[in-house]
């Protein structure tokens, strides 16, 4: 096994990786900027390399050098930062370091959206009806007629919802095509656009896969991630009320096919949109561990981060497909330092009080504590609260109970918003889709702010 692993990340995911390493008997190294020296991941790591650059988590050379100097044999990139950067994967490969993740080739194939669509189509994976990269507005019109309005214009190099427009009519396309191109150019330095059919109120369903270096690929069921705001997931659960055993095996087998088509190795997630008629379409594959991975861990009993490390070392998967069983229900909510009453603007500052919830089947993945100063330089996720129950009803009650116990003072958080979602009738019924939360917010059925003077 690896003796030492460098974690090229921060926050809760760095803590999560350190825990997996410790349980496997692996020493850990972190490289961090001075401002992060009180963060839990730095406190917990066996060795620390301090940098005076707050952008060090994106500095490929500094990270590789720190790994070599400290004698780490592998690097875990977490999510975000360099996790899906093929140049980083390549730099690790060239330096003789093992990246705990897929090859630079797999990352490149899945990172370029139109290329990924093409490879998936060839592999027999259903993709949303749409086009390849469009030459100009004229071609956009021809392709849109073919697919049928409404359509979505998307940036080929896209991500994070930028460069996307919903187009209802050919007249709208005249205006929206150049606008989206301009936005894509600004955001990604590439104006290439393609179109996809617009689906009415679909669900976001994703399949977790694990692939080892010996060619074994398995799926670990689905995650339901339809509760989103501005395409950022907020509440995730496993399994999904919308996925039957039959649909699960269908989607799972397709996800395995998608992974195999790019010679995938490691933990990955194949994201689909599931329409109201039960048809599903490939959106993209995330070539990293995901924020919401714990709900899959809770219902399968498999430690995904440990599996990632074992796979990277060259071990065979510790389980086969027939051993994967989905047991009970798990729900996660993301705890975010933001002011939900002021257009969800971030709320950096010092957490004066942090009382975590505890009790049966309650898990909190976080890097913060009472007295922790949330820096304005990084993202606003302060933790994830995850529960397990025998069924959805028990899991929901447990999550509500945990949110009641959780106390965060000093910064604004989204706790009250999460509570409102959990007690919303439509959410409880499971009648959800990717636009639901924004609909409920615009109708003021769910509102921003805090409750009785506390978060």
């Amino acid at each position: 096994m690896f003796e030492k692993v460098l974690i090229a990340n921060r926050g809760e995911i760095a803590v999560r990786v350190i825990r997996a390493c410790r349980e496997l008997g692996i020493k850990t190294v972190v490289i961090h900027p001075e401002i992060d020296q009180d963060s839990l991941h730095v406190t917990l790591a066996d060795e620390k390399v301090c940098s005076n650059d707050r952008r060090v988590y994106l500095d490929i050379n500094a990270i590789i050098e720190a790994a070599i100097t400290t004698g780490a044999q592998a690097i875990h990139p977490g999510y975000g930062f360099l996790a899906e950067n093929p140049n980083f994967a390549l730099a690790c490969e060239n330096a003789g370091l093992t990246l705990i993740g897929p090859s630079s080739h797999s990352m490149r194939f899945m990172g370029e959206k139109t290329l990924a669509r093409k490879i998936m189509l060839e592999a027999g994976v259903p993709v949303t009806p749409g086009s390849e990269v469009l030459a100009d507005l004229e071609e956009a019109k021809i392709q849109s007629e073919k697919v049928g309005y409404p359509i979505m214009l998307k940036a080929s190099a896209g991500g994070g919802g930028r460069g996307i427009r919903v187009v209802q009519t050919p007249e709208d396309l005249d205006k929206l095509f150049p606008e989206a191109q301009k936005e894509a150019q600004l955001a990604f330095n590439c104006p290439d656009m393609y179109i996809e059919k617009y689906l009415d109120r679909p669900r976001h369903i994703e399949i977790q896969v694990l692939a080892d270096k010996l060619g074994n690929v398995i799926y670990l069921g689905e995650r339901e991630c339809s509760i989103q705001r501005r395409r950022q997931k907020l509440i995730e659960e496993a399994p999904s009320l919308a996925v039957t055993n039959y649909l699960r095996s269908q989607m799972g087998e397709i996800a395995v096919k998608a992974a195999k088509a790019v010679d995938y190795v490691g933990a990955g997630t194949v994201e689909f949109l599931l329409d109201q008629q039960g048809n599903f379409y490939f959106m993209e594959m995330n070539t990293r561990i995901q924020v919401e991975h714990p709900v899959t861990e809770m219902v399968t009993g498999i430690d995904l981060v440990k599996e990632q490390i074992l796979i990277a070392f060259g071990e065979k998967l510790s389980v086969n497909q027939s051993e994967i069983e989905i047991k009970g229900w798990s729900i996660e909510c993301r705890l975010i330092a933001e002011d939900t009453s002021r257009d969800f603007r971030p709320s950096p500052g010092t957490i004066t009080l942090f009382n975590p919830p505890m009790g049966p089947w309650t898990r909190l993945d976080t890097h913060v504590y009472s007295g922790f100063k949330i820096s304005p330089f990084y993202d606003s996720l302060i933790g994830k609260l995850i529960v397990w129950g025998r069924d959805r009803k028990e899991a929901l009650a447990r999550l509500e109970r945990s949110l009641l116990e959780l106390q965060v003072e000093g910064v604004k958080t989204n706790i009250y918003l999460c509570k409102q979602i959990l007690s919303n009738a439509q959410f409880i019924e499971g009648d959800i889709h990717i636009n639901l939360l924004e609909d409920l917010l615009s109708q003021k059925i769910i509102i921003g702010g805090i409750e009785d003077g506390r978060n």
Partner: protein
Amino acid sequence: MAEIKCEMTGVIDQVLITVGATVEVGTEIVVIESMKSLITIKSLEAGEVEEIKVSQGDFIEEGETLALLK
């Protein structure tokens, strides 16, 4: 003399006013990058800009002064 205060901590991404310009309540003053979001800070005061206290790339804490008005 009125001051325009910054209502959040972050890094100045853009300064949207110039010395001598007239600002109203609600005029956009600066764009701040905080926790990977861009937030536009608007003025709560009206007047003529006498001095701008920040420039692009500066780190600013909540409550600090962005500009002075006369």
